[in-house]
């Protein structure tokens, strides 16, 4: 079991408040990712769940039991650190079996469990080596092995893939997802990489400036970000934001741009200055006709996609993601159209005012 509940958790270092009003309910078996920019408090939040960091106020519950003041060793959690934090002086075998030895399990049982874990992770040939003799990816596996043998209530990962190269990162991402399916244990995963968050999570907690911005499924975050921060943070390339104003008849006038008639807005809130957000992949583009005329400043051609950075006069830079496009190049003129049903509208407080 591994249901984790945070109730009104606050954290301050001295006078500096780093996390405020954190209320989260993470269901047993769920894969939850904490994502946010550096310094948003995501690692601190994870460390409070493990008990490595004290909670200033509020409560942490694991399976209904209040563990706010329980020491890390008694919480029954396993953690995989960014640096792996393997014990350098003992073999891979002893690293994996470390927690079991501390728990006082019989040696035969430890050997059995270590063998099973190493088989799952493909570490059989490396068991007698020291951690420093392993590659980064192998060390990562050992760290995961050390976590899984203990059959913890939940696994906590603190940016575990950030020290790996890109190819290995993708591979480990898939392995972790499969591991989660296989073990069906609660996993909490901290990352600043929104691709990792989107691809792995059942639900994502987006943190910024010490506040939970949104806690939802990846698709929910993409389709219905609650505010401008989430809208800009989730999605790559980043969502485009254009200044706009509400018109008297409830439409949205993009400054120096088109008048948008968006059907799903909360009409009461269509007032004053607004921000229109549109994802690069939702903008339509053409050589000869459209709402906005601009010049392609940079073309990034990936083969599968072309990212066009378009300078539009009096509006600024707009990013367009053109799937499979090969016919638009730097210095060309391009016409862009913003499909109204794809536009997100944010009020002055940066809150999204679309109804769905």
């Amino acid at each position, binding site marked *: 079991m591994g249901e984790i509940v945070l109730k009104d958790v606050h954290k301050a270092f001295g006078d500096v408040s780093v996390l405020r009003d954190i209320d989260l309910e993470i269901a047993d078996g769920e894969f939850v990712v904490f994502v946010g920019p550096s310094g948003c408090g995501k690692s601190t939040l994870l460390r409070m769940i493990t*008990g*490595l960091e004290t909670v200033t106020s509020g409560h942490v519950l694991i399976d209904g039991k209040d563990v706010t003041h329980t020491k*890390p*060793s008694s919480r029954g959690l396993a953690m995989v650190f960014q640096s792996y934090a*393997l*014990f350098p002086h003992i073999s891979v075998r002893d690293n994996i079996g*470390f927690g079991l030895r*501390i*728990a006082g399990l019989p040696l035969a049982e430890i050997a059995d469990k270590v063998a099973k874990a190493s088989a799952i992770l493909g570490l059989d040939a490396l068991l007698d080596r020291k951690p420093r003799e392993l590659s980064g990816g192998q060390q990562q596996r050992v760290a995961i092995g050390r976590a899984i043998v203990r059959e913890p209530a939940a696994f906590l990962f603190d940016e575990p893939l950030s020290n790996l190269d890109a190819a290995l990162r993708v591979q480990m991402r898939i392995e972790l997802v499969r591991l989660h399916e296989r073990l069906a244990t609660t996993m909490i995963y901290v990352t600043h990489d929104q691709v990792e968050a989107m691809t792995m999570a059942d639900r994502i907690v987006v943190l910024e400036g010490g506040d939970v911005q949104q806690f939802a499924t990846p698709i929910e975050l993409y389709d219905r970000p609650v505010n401008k921060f989430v809208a800009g943070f989730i999605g790559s390339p980043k969502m485009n934001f254009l200044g706009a104003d509400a018109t008297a008849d409830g439409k949205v006038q993009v400054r120096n741009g088109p008048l948008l008639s968006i059907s799903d807005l909360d009409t009461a809130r269509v007032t004053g200055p607004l921000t229109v957000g549109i994802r690069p992949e939702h903008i339509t583009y053409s050589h000869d006709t459209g709402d906005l005329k601009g010049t392609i400043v940079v073309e990034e051609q990936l083969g599968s996609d072309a990212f066009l950075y378009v300078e539009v006069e009096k509006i600024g830079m707009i990013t367009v993601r053109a799937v499979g496009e090969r016919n638009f190049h730097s210095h060309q003129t391009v016409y862009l159209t913003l499909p109204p049903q794809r536009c997100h509208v944010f009020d002055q407080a940066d809150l999204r005012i679309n109804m769905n």
Partner: protein
Amino acid sequence: MNRETKALPLVAAVFITFIFTAPIIWMVMAAFKTVVDIYAVPPVWVPDFTYLENFKVLLSDNWPFLLNSLIVTVGATVLSLALALPAAFGLVYFQFRSQNFLADWILSTRMMPPIAAAVPLYMVFNGFGMLDTIPALIIVYAGFNLPFAIWVAMSFFRNIPREIIEAARVEGCSWVQTFRLVALPLAKSGIATVATFVFIFAWNELLLALFLTTREARTFPVVISSFSTVTRTYWELISAATIIQILPPVIFTIIMQRHIVSGLTMGAVKH
């Protein structure tokens, strides 16, 4: 560089090394000379190295004091490690109010010259009836080395990546287990460094030993100093004793050297 300028630094190095080692060389030669040869003019340059009379005389009378030295030194080293390592671990990893103040305060006790403590220590041990006892010396030597030992050990513990200690905690270790199973093995070179310095201090200490011992608990340096009397200086015995005196630290340092070198340069470069 041509051959001459290449040779120059070497010649200089040999010369400087000679200046520094000359007293030791002179002493080694004196240890194997008779009293007459020691005072002979012109000097006897190469003594008869099979002449061991000086050592025999010295050890037959004074071997218990050599043993005292050994017990005091090993005792002080063990005691200061036993106290300093847990203290340093706690100062590094436990969070409590005035943590840094405590660490600075420990170091500040080292700012006082040892001689300033000699009279108070004499009175205290006199009060406890511990003058001229080995435990008294062990306590004093361990005590004098504690600030230094704690500070060096702290720097070693600080160099252990924090995440490794945290991993041990999450894996279920109590603080004692974390200390014993993770921190100590990783601070091995630190322990060797601290042990070597304490060992050398305790083995060579003379001043406090002169104050606190009279007969039974005398250490070897005290004995050596006693060979220089108002009436006569026994150079042959001083020389022989000094050779014996410098041997253990040399051997100990050679054994520990690998660790000490990695210890003293630790953290100097990124691994």
